[in-house]
């Protein structure tokens, strides 16, 4: 295993008086599959939103492949209102926040907990759109078709990707007309079309039955190999998490309460109390 892909240092995200993520630190190494678990409202999605640049953190920093992508510290009014961990309050003094599209360009792609497809576009268009960001043509040459080679290549690659992910036969369908499971697959396909190194999956198995979950497990493994990915995912299905993850982070009320291998987490009393004990079957 090589370099660190993702590094989250002392990240706190405070909304008004709500500290959704409190002093979270974690790291993801190249080629790993890492899970982030925790009860509802623990702050998992918020952590993803900070990593992908949707929110600028209140404190702390995020690095992707060693490069700082966002950093902040409590200043101005926030300094008085700050409710997060006090220990790291004065640790940072830099401010930086890349917009989500810039972060995606660096090689971080994601899916959403509540599927966010381009609903009225076809399956093919959904994936093709994700290729726009890597095309070089400016709008004039794209309008007048001077980039036809690039366009043709993008279309070809889109079809190849759809074939690989078993979506080719529905390529002409409108995205919102697909069955739920396929929509989840399409969202992953679209994320892959941005050619990421790090793939963030927010509850990819939500709403799936055990059989579908098993299929998804195999699917994630396969794309991880095929696309040389590092995977960081939020998931509630414990079977999937325990089977697939190299390491697991556990979040409760915004705070990291445990990290370790699946065995360690399964035997961790705090985790059992906080999470596994109250876990309800979906």
């Amino acid at each position, binding site marked *: 295993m090589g370099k660190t892909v993702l590094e989250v240092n002392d990240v706190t995200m405070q909304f008004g008086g709500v500290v959704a993520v409190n002093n979270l630190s974690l790291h993801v190494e190249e080629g790993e599959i890492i899970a982030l678990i925790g009860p509802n409202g623990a702050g998992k999605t918020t952590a993803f939103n900070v990593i*992908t640049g*949707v929110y600028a953190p209140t404190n702390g920093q995020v690095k992707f492949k060693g490069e700082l992508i966002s950093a902040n510290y409590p200043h101005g009014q926030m300094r008085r209102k700050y409710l997060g961990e006090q220990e790291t309050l004065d640790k940072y003094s830099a401010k930086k926040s890349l*917009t*989500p*599209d*810039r972060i*995606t*360009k660096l090689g971080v*792609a*994601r899916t*959403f907990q509540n599927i*966010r*497809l*381009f*609903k*009225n*576009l076809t399956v093919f*268009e959904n994936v*093709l*759109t*994700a*290729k*726009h*960001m*890597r*095309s070089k*043509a400016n*709008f004039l040459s*794209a*309008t*007048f*078709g001077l*980039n036809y080679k690039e*366009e043709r290549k*993008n279309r070809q690659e889109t079809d190849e990707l759809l074939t690989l992910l078993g979506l080719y036969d529905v390529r002409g369908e409108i995205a919102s007309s697909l069955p739920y499971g396929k929509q989840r697959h399409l969202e992953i396909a*679209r*994320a892959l*079309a*941005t050619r990421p190194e790090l793939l963030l999956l927010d509850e990819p198995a939500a709403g799936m039955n055990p059989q579908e979950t098993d299929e998804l497990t195999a699917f994630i493994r396969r794309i991880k190999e095929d696309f040389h990915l590092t995977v960081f995912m939020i998931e509630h299905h414990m079977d999937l998490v325990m089977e697939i993850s190299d390491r697991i982070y556990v979040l409760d009320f915004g705070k990291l309460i445990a990290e370790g291998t699946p065995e360690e987490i399964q035997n961790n009393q705090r985790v059992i109390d906080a999470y596994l004990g109250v876990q309800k079957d979906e």
Partner: protein
Amino acid sequence: MSRKQKNIGTGILILAAVVLIALFDNDVIGNAYVKRVLNLAAIYAIISVSMNLVNGFTGLFSLGQAGFMAIGAFSVAIFTVPEQYISSIFYIEPMAPWLAAIRLPFVAALLVGGLIAAALALLIGYPVLRLKSDYLAIATLGFSEIIRIVFTQLQTITNGALGINRIPGITTMWVPFGAAAVCIGIMVLLIRSSYGRAFKAIREDDIAAEAMGINLSFHKNLSFAVSSFFTAIGGGLYAALLTSVDPKQFYFTMTYNFLLIIVLGGMGSVTGTVIASFIITGGLEWLRFFDEPLSIMGVNIPIFRSGLRMVVFSILLMVLVLFYSKGLMGQKEFSWDGIYRQYEKIKGRLKRTSAKRKGGAA
């Protein structure tokens, strides 16, 4: 339907349009009034498709059409009005000499207007379009009014409230229709390009679009600037069609015409917009009698007065939004396959009813 059949169909349609325009243009059919309405409809089609680019394809809400149109219209008026008339038109205060010295051919004046409009669009768009929520509607509405007021004040440039007349007119229908074909054609190409797909992605879900690497601010500004460019081109043609402009023509109510057109045609449908432009422009002319005083059996009906037309118009808009929110075409475009499907559907229905009737009889 085979590709060849479709191509033949499209060819026939284009040929029919060309023949029709030629017949109108050479006064074989119709008259000057009909010609004028058709020309206006073609110009409105350009402006409406531009508006749809932003509102229907990019999912923003802009209401600045009248303002951008005014820029194009005055650009044509200022730069193409013949030198010998300038002093008589600008009789209160003379036109600024540096401006009077610049006389441009029609096409150049159109392009200047378009470029100024695009630059102003970026000026408004850059601060406003960065915000996540939609302040664009308010900003563009305000902008449109500001432009109108500024144009009323700039006596030495726009001749103020008097406006400019004796603008060289449009002599043939090929000018507005040719311009419409070119402008709408370019916008269609843009919509079909990967930039157009990015616009649609933003419309569908801006958070997802941004997560797919699409720079929201850049693409929103691009769409808005291109739209403003072509709106101004439309405005310039409008000035040449009327041969006179004054700021009062560009009240923000003007924008509602185009809003009605894109709502009727379908937000996100170019062909729907073009069809609706002709329906609405024709319909508005037809509705003109609402604005005339009307007396039935010697009694004056008091509500028939100037302005009633717009009331009727607003009611139509409301009815449309309430009962027919997708418009004629929704987000679809005209296609032979679509026509064929409709045809099959109707045929199927006819067959079924006749079968039922037979069954009932037996």
